[in-house]
């Protein structure tokens, strides 16, 4: 049984190939052409695993670029893929918080890992990876550095959730000589508040898993735990859960 899952995100394209009990994964920048990125991911997976293209029973594609991709056997939303991927790794999880580049989602799982309900941010970039990206640039940092640079003990509340306002707010905070570490902690708090509000509307059931690229940022994890008043578990290889879910679905549909 061999299946491929491709998650074409706005920033990175992730691929997982499952062959019997073996898992292979790749990650590459999506760039301007999501379709090409999808094909490249498949090619890399095949090279990595030594599987021939015709040996793959099914390819499931997800992510924002899913519609642009032309040779998928099935197109599935990131919501279902994350649910599938996370519940495969952690069957006890009931709530998934997924913060990606463009959007943030909260997914509620039933006892067998099925999607029971979900919520998603609206057009606004507040509470997404994009928000942190813009802020990192304003602070002269890489977005991947934010989690390690923050110092929650020096926390400075960044009250704006709106990307545009927050950017000018932190420029102001910096100008007044405030430490970066405190500002960053405040930014994480802001993202945490926004996403937690969305989660609370739906109801938060433990265990809570945190996935998506932003889950690598331990500051956001800390903020989420404070806001939700419960522990939040970061999913291992969190960037890949969508692709993993897609690959699992590919294997499953192959069987049918």
């Amino acid at each position, binding site marked *: 049984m061999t299946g491929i899952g491709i998650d074409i995100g706005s920033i990175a394209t992730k691929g997982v190939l499952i062959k019997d009990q073996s898992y292979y994964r790749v990650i590459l920048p999506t760039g301007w052409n999501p379709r090409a990125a999808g094909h490249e991911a498949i090619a890399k997976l095949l090279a990595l695993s030594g599987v021939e293209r015709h040996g793959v029973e099914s390819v499931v594609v997800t992510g924002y670029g899913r519609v642009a991709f032309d040779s998928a056997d099935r197109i599935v939303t990131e919501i279902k893929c994350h649910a599938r991927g996370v519940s495969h790794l952690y069957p006890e999880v009931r709530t998934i918080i997924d913060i990606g580049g463009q959007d943030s989602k909260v997914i509620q799982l039933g006892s067998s890992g099925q999607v029971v309900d979900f919520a998603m941010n609206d*057009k606004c970039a507040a509470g997404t990876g994009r928000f942190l990206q813009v802020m990192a640039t304003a602070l002269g940092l890489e977005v991947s550095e934010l989690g390690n640079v923050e110092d929650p003990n020096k926390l400075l509340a960044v009250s704006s959730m709106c990307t545009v306002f927050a950017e000018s707010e932190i420029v102001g905070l910096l100008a007044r000589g405030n430490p970066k570490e405190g500002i960053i902690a405040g930014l994480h708090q802001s993202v945490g508040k926004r996403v937690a509000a969305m989660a609370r509307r739906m109801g938060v059931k433990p265990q809570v898993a945190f996935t998506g690229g932003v889950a690598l940022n331990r500051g956001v994890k800390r903020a989420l735990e404070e806001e939700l008043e419960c522990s939040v578990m970061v999913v291992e290889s969190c960037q890949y859960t969508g692709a993993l879910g897609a690959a699992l679905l590919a294997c499953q549909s192959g069987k049918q």
Partner: protein
Amino acid sequence: MSNQYIAPFSNARDINLMQIKAAKASGRKVVGIYCAYCPQELILAAGAIPVSLCGTREEPIPAAEVLLPRNLCPLIKSSFGFAVTDTCPFFHFSDLVIGETTCDGKRKMFELMHELKPVHVMQLPHNNVSPAAFDLWADELRRLRLRLEEELNTRITDESLWQAMELVGQERKFIKAMFDLNQADPPLFTGLELLTVSWSRNFSSDKGGLIGQLQQLLENVREKPTGTPAPRVLLTGCPVGLGSEKVITVTEDLGAHIVAMENCSGYKTVDLQYDNTIDDPIIALAQMYLGIPCSCMSPNPQRLELIERMIADFKVDAVIDLTWQACHTYNIESYHVGKLVKEKGLPYLHLESDYSNSDKENIKVRVQAMLEMIEK
């Protein structure tokens, strides 16, 4: 349009526009309306043509935002935008516009519209159960009758009113019959087709002609080959019209059927029937119209009952509840709707959107994820 029988309805607007123009030239009066609560029977009985005014397209919204707040319902902004730019021919032809106090935004928007046209605003009660609310509404209908008589220089007799009620009742009956055919699995019509036919009512200068067309459709359509089975979705919430049908198209493009709509262009208004044992047509009309389960009524258990009934009758697999941005009544009522649908074990998707296409991808993901929940 895939269904050949729907074709006559899809160009109803243009045909009717020419007819209205001609009727207007020959001295007939035109009265513009915005809301399902407006009793068009009174307008017909006054010998005038009731037309629904434009308000379902995005184009004139920037013009409206010069005077209205940006953070307002797109339906209100579009309606006002069409009026202020004089790009809605029906508004242009209207001798009188009828408004009503259904929501905060509309109530205040009509204050600005006064500068453009004679506007008669009807006060709609906040509930449909108290005797005071009923008296108020019946009184508002009497006032409208007087205003129409005055403005159009005519007399509205009880007899002509009963006749108009009979005619509009027929039209509702046939629209409902068409909607009900979609209880079949697979459904006979797409959501867009339902909307197209329902929409054609809004501009018809000739009710009799439309009723004939509807009868024809109902006879013909039985020959229509059956489609493929797919998830059956009920659309509820704010009004949807041609130009603001993006949720319908997104859902149907993803392979599901919008089998029924509970909103104002759907079931909410076709279920209405007047009690013909009542002597006073105004009382009969008031009773019937106050039965519309709009979220502006508080409380509004009738909408929940209607949704529950439609879920059963139309064998619904999932419910999409659409709220236009800044429509507080539907937005807050979604709390109760969501509870009801989820208690039935069905996926429920609440969308808050506007007329722009900027969130189309976002909506697509959500609708698709909702449909995936049906697959199990």
